[in-house]
């Protein structure tokens, strides 16, 4: 009964639109409302669209790189949990800041940092004699540049979950490990990591789902005019471009369905695999 308000919201704003999207993917849209049934037409276009292939590859690359945030955040969280660590609150705030910052502000700031001619990143590189590329407009580097921002931005959220996970590990285990002669590094790999696997699993699932929906960084940092767009556009970006900029709502819905299927399959696969490596203490 107490769940009712939340459940109602979920049905109205999440579940119902999902079914609407699936329905719309079989239709063709008029300019200002109105649609007609077009059967599998959108899916036929989808299979032949080379931009969709690019988008799938780009999304996969971004997801893979963003997953790096998981081990990094685990290490950061473990370091912050060390007994006697000073200034934990300051570090925690610093790492968490990107999570509560507007994505537009994040994107704009990083865009300046990555500017090929006047950016801070290339200025620092030039100090050590490296001639940095035009990070965001070079098709070869743009996807890595935005993925790095993605990693940087998701560390804070992951870290908070890991921190509370580490708090839940009884001190006895560490004391026992220390008695057996395990150093800090060994303790991390043989005590912290195994007992943290439920948190790691949760964070991994969330990271993959979020990375599959990457849009804001591509839209704000690269954009349609950039020569790097083909090598950075993600499925959600393509969805936006086709649906909102090019007014092809039905086709955009088909891209949405493709993304939905990819998310379902990847998440289901992770749940199957978890039995092999997640320890529920």
């Amino acid at each position, binding site marked *: 009964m107490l769940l009712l308000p939340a459940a109602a919201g979920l049905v109205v704003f999440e579940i119902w639109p999902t079914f609407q999207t699936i329905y719309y993917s079989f239709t063709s849209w008029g*300019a*200002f409302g109105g649609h007609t049934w077009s059967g599998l037409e959108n899916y036929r276009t989808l299979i032949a669209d080379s931009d969709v292939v690019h988008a799938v590859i780009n999304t996969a690359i971004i997801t893979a790189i963003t997953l790096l945030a998981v081990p990094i955040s685990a290490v950061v969280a473990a370091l912050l949990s060390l007994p006697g660590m000073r200034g934990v609150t300051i570090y925690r705030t610093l790492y968490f800041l990107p999570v509560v910052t507007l994505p537009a502000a994040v994107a704009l700031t990083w865009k300046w940092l990555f500017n*090929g001619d006047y950016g801070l990143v290339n200025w620092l590189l030039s100090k050590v004699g490296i001639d940095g590329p*035009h990070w965001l407009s070079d098709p070869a580097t743009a996807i890595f540049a935005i993925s790095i921002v993605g990693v940087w931005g998701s560390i804070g959220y992951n870290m908070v979950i890991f921190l509370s996970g580490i708090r839940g590990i009884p001190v006895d285990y560490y004391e026992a490990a220390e008695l057996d002669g395990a150093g800090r590094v060994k303790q991390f790999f043989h005590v912290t990591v195994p007992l943290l696997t439920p948190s790691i699993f949760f964070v991994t699932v969330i990271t993959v789902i979020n990375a599959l929906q990457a849009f804001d960084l591509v839209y704000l940092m690269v954009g*349609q*005019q*950039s*020569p790097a767009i*083909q090598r950075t556009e993600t499925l959600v970006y393509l969805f936006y*471009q086709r649906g909102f900029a090019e007014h092809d709502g039905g086709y955009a819905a088909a891209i949405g369905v493709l993304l939905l299927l990819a998310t379902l399959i990847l998440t289901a696969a992770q749940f199957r695999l978890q039995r092999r490596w997640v320890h529920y203490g």
Partner: protein
Amino acid sequence: MLVAPFLAAAACSGSSDSGGGDDKQVTLTYAIWDQAQVAAMKQIISEFHSQHPNIDVQVQVTPWESYWTKLQTAVTAGTGPDVFWMTMVYAKYYATGGGIAPLDDQIKSSKMDMGAYVPAVTKAYTIDGKVFGVPKDVNGFGLCYNKQLFDAAKVKYPDESWTWSDVIAAAQKLTNPQKGVYGFVAPEADELSWYLTVPQVGGQIISPDGKSSGYDQPATVKGIQFWTDMITKYHVSPTLQQTTDTDPLAMLTSGKVAMRYCGSWEPEEIAAVPYGKAHIDIAPLPAGPDGNRNYYSNGLANSMSAKTQHREQAWEFLQFLGSERAAEIQAKTGTVIPAYEGHAEAYAKAMPEFDLQVFVDQLKYAQPFPASTDTAAWRDDATKQFAEAWTGKASVDEVSRSVASKMNDALSKEKK
């Protein structure tokens, strides 16, 4: 007790200024995209409000990048603005799709003179014989150049005799790699680049009947090649990567490039930078190799949402936006050339530090902006594909043919 006389007074004042006989207070939303024109728009609104105290107008500024996506979603949902800026690019789409209202009945009953506006603009907003917008402004183009850099390289300032070859020769002399200065900047921005040179060699973006692409014509390729040559052949312009990372206008106003093709809405931005105000001037747009000066000009109109709840009030506001007084206000700020004829001179004198007259003189060569019903379906794609030619990975000829074939596909879908 106190309320009754107040209400009576309000009712009296309401009926005395019988604008349309409707005395209730109404608030209209007016959507625009250019921050630089907000001041002029607010002045127009305040004068309008003093004539029509029962109509309030709220300005809603959305940057160009998200203006159209937001507008379409809002209009479809019925929550859109009552009056908004329209460009030639989207006019047919909104008119045939039922997003904007035809204005013929109102124009007839209030005896509005459509002949007062630049004909090219009125024509672009007359779709299937009906008028869908009150012309607002028209674009002219010119060659912005940095006097300081020209003096330093001892190159003569550009004038009306210049053609493509003069631009190339000057750009070569002005380029100075040691100082990081380029003679010219060739961004990949259709409206500010090849839409200006393609008509000068007789090429076209879209056939006059709007049914087929002109990108596969040799003349069109030649017009585009002018821009890519600047980067890949003569090396007198920053690369596409540089112009993507840094705004080409900022390159001009910071002395990094000596010449850039400019639009008539840009001098205000240039003057906002002290270095730009001091060292930049504007020359006529260089002509094509044979002296041809035709160019594609966009021009805006104010349109009424087909779904507005306040048709009468919106029409009152549209009439004022299309009035001579509104044209005067806009011209004096130097932001745009009003489409209301006879006010270009006020624009030209708005900023004495620049020779704005060149934009006005060019208006007679204006050609209608390339557009079809669903322009966005092929225009964005062209920009995306031409990146390959700008970076030198493929020839303009190859890319153009590929752009043309995708564009023809998109155009054939429109007919269905």
